[in-house]
């Protein structure tokens, strides 16, 4: 009895040149340039790419997730300080930027569609539009960062948060009183100031880390899309080869989803008065 579990029966092929011959290639005589040598067919390749991308996105969920858990823990510890710190973010700019990002998601989805039907021109157009919108988002972000810098809201030695200096509205005043930095009759309570500073700085620590990480993802995404534009312009990555566009699309949409959560968490924490 054979101890082998295998039933391959045919005699071994005569090997070709050492290392260079891919026995699989023989079958794909008309090998498709979009098919990598170690896959058997396009379907297998597409499945591998899709699964790989989704598994990677699961990783990304946990990556942002760890930070979000920390953020929520801190928010529940210092709801008042975080609330007032969050009110310094400009929700109008944030809303606008969210809209820009949603548009970029649409254009990316369309780019994938056009790549699949091998429409080179429209694919390029949509990809460029996506990069443009992404860059616009990042530009606005940079503008927001610079205002934070000017207002000394960047954590570090120069951090100094003094909302009472800037004509606080009624809700802000109420929050400051609840935080104890303002007394009931509106005077500054110096004893509560240091704690107020560290806690709001903690909020900004989260703000910059979360949005910064998100921005880094956007920059990487934009870079990849530009590379795609180049490939598509040469007629690659279309039709059968559109996997690459599709995977980049998944990534881009994911980054968009992260923002869909960050926006209400950071900008819209209870604005009611």
């Amino acid at each position, binding site marked *: *009895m*054979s*101890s*082998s*579990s*295998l*039933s*391959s*029966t*045919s*005699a*071994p*092929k*005569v*090997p070709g040149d*050492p*290392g*260079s*011959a*891919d*026995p*699989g290639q023989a079958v794909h005589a008309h090998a498709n340039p979009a098919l990598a*040598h*170690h*896959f*058997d067919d396009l379907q*297998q390749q597409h*499945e*591998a790419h899709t*699964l*790989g991308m989704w*598994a*990677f996105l*699961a*990783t*990304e969920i*946990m*990556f*942002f*997730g*760890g*930070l979000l*858990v*920390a953020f929520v*823990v*801190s928010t529940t*510890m*210092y709801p008042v300080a975080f609330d007032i710190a969050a009110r310094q973010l400009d929700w109008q700019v944030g809303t606008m930027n969210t809209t820009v990002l949603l548009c970029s998601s649409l254009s990316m989805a369309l780019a994938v569609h056009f790549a699949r039907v091998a429409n080179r021109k429209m694919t390029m157009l949509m990809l460029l539009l996506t990069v443009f919108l992404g860059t616009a988002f990042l530009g606005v972000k940079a503008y927001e960062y610079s205002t934070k810098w000017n207002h000394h809201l960047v*954590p*570090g*030695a120069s951090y100094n948060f003094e909302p009472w200096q800037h004509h606080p509205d009624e809700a802000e005043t109420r929050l400051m009183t609840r935080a104890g930095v303002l007394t009931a009759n509106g005077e500054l309570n110096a004893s509560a100031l240091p*704690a107020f500073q*560290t*806690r709001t*700085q*903690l909020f900004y*620590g*989260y703000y910059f*880390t979360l949005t910064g990480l998100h921005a880094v993802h956007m920059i990487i995404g934009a870079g990849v899309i530009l590379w795609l534009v180049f490939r598509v312009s040469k007629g690659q990555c279309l039709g059968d080869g559109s996997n690459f566009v599709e995977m980049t699309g998944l990534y881009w949409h994911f980054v968009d989803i992260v923002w869909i959560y960050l926006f209400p968490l950071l900008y819209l924490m209870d604005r009611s008065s």
Partner: protein
Amino acid sequence: MTTLDLQLPHPRRDYLAAGNTIKSWLLTVDHKRIAILYLISVTIFFFIGGAAAGVLRWELLTPAGDFTTSETYNRTFTIHGVVMVFFFLIPAIPGILGNFLIPIMIGAKDMAFPKINLASWYIYMVGGILSLASMLIGGVDTGWTFYTPYSTSYSSSAVVLMGTGILITGFSSIFTGLNFIVTIHTMRCPGMTWFRLPLFIWSHYATALIMILGTPVLAITIAMVAVDRVFGIGFFDPDKGGDPLLFQHLFWFYSHPAVYIMILPAMGVISELVACFSRKPVFGYAAVAVSSLAIAVLGFLVWGHHMFVSGQSPYAGLVFSILSFLVAVPSAIKVFNWTFTLYKGRISYATPMLYVFGFLGLFTIGGLTGLFLAALAVDIHVTDTYFIVAHFHYIMVGGSVMAYMGGLHFWWPKITGRMYNERWAMLSAILMFIGFNLTFFPQFVVGYLGMPRRYHEYAQEFQVLNVLSTAGATVLGAAYIFPLTYLLYSLFKGPRAGNNPWRATGLEWQTTSPPPTFNFDKTPVVTEPPYAYDVEDDEEFDVIHPQGGQTV
């Protein structure tokens, strides 16, 4: 006997012959060559970590802090822990054996993403070099656990650099995991259904799940520590409004599952070996396969058992304790099933099998002492003592390293095409077992006596046990030098091994040794479950004779 008659019609066409230039190695995308790259680098890291262990043990010979300063000692155990965990054990079995074998075992030509596979190795090396660089510029003195606020606000060492190294290496682990998952899902050859997969594959699949779902949390946690240090934000520093327990939660959310990253691949190796050297299928195949997944999932629910005395809520402690007892169940299933596999087998004691015996004994002890720690009452007393040190060395050195050595010996003829010297190999295995027990058993005793870990100086009455431990470490260190020597020697002078020296089943044994670049000349088709061994087959292994030694 073998179905594929692969008597090398062409003298050299294996993956090793695909090129000899440095470039052909550094730019290869062949999973087998990448495995060799890992083999070399992991071995280097092991000896660096081992050298650090030597320093630790030497210091602990006497109660006084006389061999090193406390500063050096603290940096030494940090580098020892970091290197052994992140740069040796986590990549060892997956990076070397996993990379080499997974595609072959499932009948594929390569990993799903060969370039990412190579990138993983580079990322790992960059991370490793950064971490070692942090050692050169003064080292890090936080312990491998980086507890805050010490690591963020008090330590004046190269925490950020080492953290960056670990973070980067984390991505290597993530990409390796991704590759494994996708490869196992999509690249199986015809007929290779899930329940025909070798158990090695199952356990690597489970490992990969932990890698992709756990590692990112470590990455972000370390990034937050770095941000804390650089910008003084204080996510984890109570002086600045943060919470040190939050750090511990995030750290252990990864680091407990990470201990299963370190044991699951070892378990996969043991399954293959125990079947081959008993000439029988693994008993309870399905149970052993599914228990790997159970470990991976349950392993994410118990991290708080590292925090029983940390100031965590005692009620959370209760939950984590009960779940820790439950996570032991799938391990118990495996141990018993391996044991039963021997029943009515045809057992031979070749070197890999000796390591299997070593593994079974030592892992059992290590795992059972894990139950002591999961028991809230006992853990209060033994946490942060040498009892913990003994527990995890029993599992990681007695379990994982033993399995790694066993696997390396088992697949060595496949990887290199050469056979090592059986006598030396057996001698080393036995020496390792003795040295190991002498090193770490006394640590259980001294731990229950109350000797805290990470102590550079200790109380007088702990000395005798520490002397024993140091003596054992010396034996153990020597025992690790042997394989390094005879394995290297076999590369040049070892006899040719033949394609299937152990007459094992499994696709990797049906191709040539060493395998060709694309693993098979013809995509295999699988029609049977794995481990179709024949107990009645009582031939000798043909590898033994050329050495003059005999399987006893």
